[in-house]
């Protein structure tokens, strides 16, 4: 049987390469932006900050999508499904490697953005801004908020991937025992349900972001966010259990 370490490495390699390619593209976009701004004669100490922070969200979204594709390919390709491992181990390692690579990607982005912000901060009125630094208690609240936001970000991505897998695997499972005609009907029903769920999820996220902003600006209790995180974790576990059952019993690989 394949060990966890080997499985982790094998499933991580492509994802790591993809994340690095994405970072390289982001870097190129940032450099091109800086050159363009310099040519226009509008370069300042904060240009780097705006360029890095302006480009950061797009690769983040693309990264989540690329990783989602990788996750789903694993379940239908013999190259992965023939590995001598239990489905539970395959499923959890697949999600874990995606999460680890997303964290790596995000850390690199965060470091680059921090450097850019620091340059802008210290070269353009940083000393005067230091005078307006919040008191120590507020900093403690900030750390608590930061931890909550990071965990929320991770759990939200896990929820997105696990929901995509849930829909994908349910659809594949249906195809194993329904006639072609009914299979199409079931797929349409599933897609409608998924669109509905996506809209609900989007609403939830938008509502969450609005709520987070409200709390951030009104110094309210951050502990409430953990309730949402726990709720999402429960959904991930339930979806995960169903996904693994689908993999074990019905989901086949694409034929040779």
């Amino acid at each position, binding site marked *: 049987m394949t060990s966890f370490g*080997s499985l982790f490495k094998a499933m991580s390699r492509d994802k790591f390469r993809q994340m690095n390619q994405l970072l390289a593209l982001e870097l190129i976009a940032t450099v091109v932006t800086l050159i363009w701004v310099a040519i226009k004669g509008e370069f300042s100490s904060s240009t780097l900050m705006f360029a890095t922070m302006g480009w950061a969200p797009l690769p983040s979204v693309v990264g989540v999508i690329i990783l989602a594709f990788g996750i789903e*390919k694993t379940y239908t390709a013999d*190259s992965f*499904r023939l590995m*001598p*491992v239990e489905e539970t181990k395959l499923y959890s390692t697949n999600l874990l490697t995606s999460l680890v690579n997303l964290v790596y990607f995000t850390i690199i982005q965060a470091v680059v953005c921090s450097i850019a912000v620091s340059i802008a901060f210290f070269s353009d009125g940083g000393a005067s801004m230091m005078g307006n630094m919040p008191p120590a208690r507020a900093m403690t609240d900030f750390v608590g908020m930061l931890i909550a936001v990071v965990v929320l970000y991770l759990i939200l991505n896990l929820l997105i991937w696990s929901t995509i897998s849930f829909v994908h695997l349910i659809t594949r499972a249906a195809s194993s*025992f*329904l006639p072609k005609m009914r299979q199409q009907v079931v797929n349409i029903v599933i897609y409608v349900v998924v669109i509905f769920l996506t809209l609900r999820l989007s609403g939830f996220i938008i509502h969450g972001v609005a709520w987070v902003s409200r709390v951030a600006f009104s110094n309210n209790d951050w502990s409430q966010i953990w309730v949402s995180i726990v709720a999402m974790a429960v959904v991930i576990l339930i979806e995960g259990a169903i996904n693994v059952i689908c993999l074990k*019993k019905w989901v*086949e690989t694409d034929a040779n």
Partner: protein
Amino acid sequence: MTDVLTIENLSYKRNQKLILANVDLTLAAGKIVGLLGENGAGKTTLMRLITGSAQGNGTITVSGTTTPAQRKSHVSFSEQLHGFSKSTKLARVVSFYQLVYPDFDLKRYQDLAAFLQINDDLKLSALSKGMREKFIIALTLARQVELYLLDEPFSGIDSMSRKKIISSIIQWTPENATLLISDHYVTEIASVLDEIVVVKDQTIAVHRGADEIRNQTGLEIEDYYESLYEGGVQHD
């Protein structure tokens, strides 16, 4: 002689269509077995059921193990590498195999690759059909397992490549391992087969020794196989 594969009462349906029914098959260790049948007879499906890539009803035992995850440790299947992007270099695929299959023998792969003239620096997209098939054979046979499943290794490739692949099969299949080769052309492989298994009418129609067929019917394997479809020979 011990049995490497035992299939009992296996049935498989897809989209409410019965593909295999009441399949019973036992293969002893150390044999080269031809899995024959028309296109769409269910040869690939049977192999996929053995590996656990498809799920049917019935019992499949490979080297004493029954769960799909355990069976996969004892079976090497000629999968078509669809999990890798076309830009993946062969060396990267080899490295993946080395990582995930503890039984993958790199030295054995290198010997096979040298024999089949495979260049590991190439990308998957750069391989011709014949070269890709050779690469798949090399990966499959480089694992040290009890049961090898080669799914139509000769389809669409030239005669020189076919000869090379057959030579590699003869040379590199371990003595005590069993090799199941599916094909619908019998001529190329008839000379190396110890037994044939014919999938017909959704089940195993024939499972006989190659020499037994030659001695008892006076027919060559190819003629015997064709006669099954002409109604000239009553199968078991």
